[in-house]
């Protein structure tokens, strides 16, 4: 009896220790999210001051405040409200969306290399945009045809893969390989289009594909925000299922999760989210790949926290990258897509070097 009494009392203090440690870990997760939110506000404020027209941070804040009550009138107000602010907001929305889509893709495919583009989404979107631009329809009908076309085509790989899973089981391997195949098919189609197109049109199509926030307008913010809000809410609701799927398909099923169905629905939502963003911005690489990895290193793999954390980290990263892209070679403004990829590569290698375990 003495032995069991000892384990009982020993156990209770141990439990309290574990609880305290768990709470501390929870605090760390929330701290990362809070820290990223602060970073976004700071970078955003600095970003609004940078550019050809000089404005100080204090002016920016007062313009922002005044702008809430009347339409922009002075040059400074127009620059901040109509040029810089939509770009900054688009950077934040796109960063959140791409990073969360990446987290979900990595989660359902249980693959650290997955990103929003693993399933061929980016080359399909590129094809859609190129088709609209190169056939000249984009110029006549307007910018929105390019967006609509990119959006429409970017969803094709997802639906092809879904159709595929009617014949093959929806395992991560099948989906990744099918995605790679779709990616090649659309890349080839782009090359074919470009081969026959006028050089000027090719250049424009190429600029689209690189990915830039320079095209962002206030009118674009509302649809992107809506897609983001709907998709992220749905994905958050699936976050615990995603954790369970991370333990393996059979385990997930034995815990009551319909794995294949969850995998398909998460894939559709994440694809919609990606398509909704990149049809406005062009393909911006690496945010969706790097953000989830950074967050996993810092706060572990629990998707209930990983999803929001990688969203805000992605937003901070993209906003910082775009701010740098606007200033590093001023007055030339680089497309942010080039910058994320050139910075993302080395950053990813650095993360790989720093990892201590099999995974983070």
């Amino acid at each position, binding site marked *: 009896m003495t032995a069991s009494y000892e*384990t009982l009392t020993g*156990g209770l203090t*141990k*439990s309290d220790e*574990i*609880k305290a*440690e*768990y709470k501390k*870990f929870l605090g760390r997760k929330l701290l990362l999210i809070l820290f990223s939110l602060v970073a976004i506000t700071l970078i955003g404020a600095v970003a609004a001051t940078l550019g050809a027209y000089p404005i100080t941070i204090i002016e920016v804040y007062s313009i922002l405040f005044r702008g809430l009550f009347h339409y922009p009138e002075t040059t400074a107000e127009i620059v901040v409200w109509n040029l810089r602010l939509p770009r900054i907001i688009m950077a934040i929305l796109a960063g959140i969306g791409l990073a969360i889509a990446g987290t979900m893709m*990595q*989660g359902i495919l*249980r*693959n*650290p290399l997955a990103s929003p583009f693993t399933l061929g989404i980016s080359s399909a979107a590129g094809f859609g945009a190129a088709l609209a631009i190169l056939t000249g329809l984009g110029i006549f009908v307007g910018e929105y045809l390019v967006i609509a076309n990119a959006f429409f085509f970017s969803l094709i790989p997802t639906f092809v893969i879904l159709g595929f899973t009617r014949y093959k089981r929806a395992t991560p391997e099948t989906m990744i390989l099918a995605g790679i195949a779709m990616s090649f098919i659309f890349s080839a189609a782009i090359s074919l289009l470009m081969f026959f197109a006028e050089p000027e049109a090719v250049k424009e199509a190429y600029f689209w594909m690189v990915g830039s926030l320079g095209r962002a307008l206030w009118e674009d913010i509302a649809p992107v925000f809506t897609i983001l809000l709907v998709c992220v809410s749905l994905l958050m*609701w699936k*976050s*615990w*299922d995603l*954790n*369970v799927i*991370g*333990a*393996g*398909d*059979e*385990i997930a*099923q*034995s*815990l*009551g*999760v*319909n794995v294949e169905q969850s995998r398909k629905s998460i894939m559709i939502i994440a694809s919609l989210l990606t398509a909704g963003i990149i049809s406005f911005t062009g393909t911006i690489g690496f945010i969706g790949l790097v953000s989830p990895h950074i967050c*996993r290193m810092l706060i*572990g*793999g*629990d998707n209930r926290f990983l999803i929001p954390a990688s969203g805000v980290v992605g937003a901070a990263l993209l906003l910082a990258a775009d701010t740098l892209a606007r200033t590093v070679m001023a007055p030339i403004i680089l497309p942010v897509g080039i910058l994320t990829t050139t910075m993302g590569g080395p950053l990813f290698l650095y993360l790989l070097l720093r990892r201590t*375990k*099999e*995974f*983070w």
Partner: protein
Amino acid sequence: MRLRVKDVEFSYRSVRVLNGVSMELAESEMLGIVGPNGTGKSTLIRCLNRILSPQKGTVLLDVWDIKKIRLIVQDIKKMSLMELARKIGYIPQTTSQVFPATVFDTILMGRRPHVGWRSSEKDTEKVLEMLRLLNIEEFAMRDINELSGGQQQKVFIARALTQEPDILLLDEPTSNLDIRHQLEVMDIIKNIIRKKGISAIVAIHDLNLAARYSDRVLMMNSGKIFAAGNPSSVLTPANIRDVYGVEADVTNNSDNGRPYIVPIRAVREDER
């Protein structure tokens, strides 16, 4: 009876793996399944919790009906995955966890069939209780991928128990473990079965572990049940020779009265 399996047949594409299997599992019973590689042990276990769906036959569970206040027999095909997950826990051989997950969060997954999106204080208490029960509190906040095979196996048992199932399915729980962990894990399972009145089905390669821990042993051969009964009636030299093609000495363990098997040599094909 907790579980009844009737004439189950299962094929992967054209290969028939289970060929008319029938069996029963009683309350608080530990049922060991033995048999050579590829004989359908794992397949049978996966047919019991719908990871696989048998082409023929039925799997019936005793389910407590709250409205009628009595036990009713239900076909698992007619149950939702959530309902089934509250009845049957499953413990695989190894983990396929790729991304980091703490032991605590891994065990918390076991509450998935019971609660929705948020986990409550009660769920936390359940996890803490399991950590205590399996004596793995010191690993609670460690990453599951950092643990040894034996420690991982305990975590998986804890997760399955957090599901609060009536039946545990274990697929070769000792196959990657050293002898100390083999005994530890089997003792844990046995004790929990007694304490909580759970039944367990354990696919196991080691005949001596099966003999020592099972209440009943099911010997399978090429997708069929070759023999079933108490360990000493199933684990006989004749059965072992017929099923495994191995000549073995079987003595009686004086400590616990269970059969003790010493394999001598593989029987040549022309001798069989």
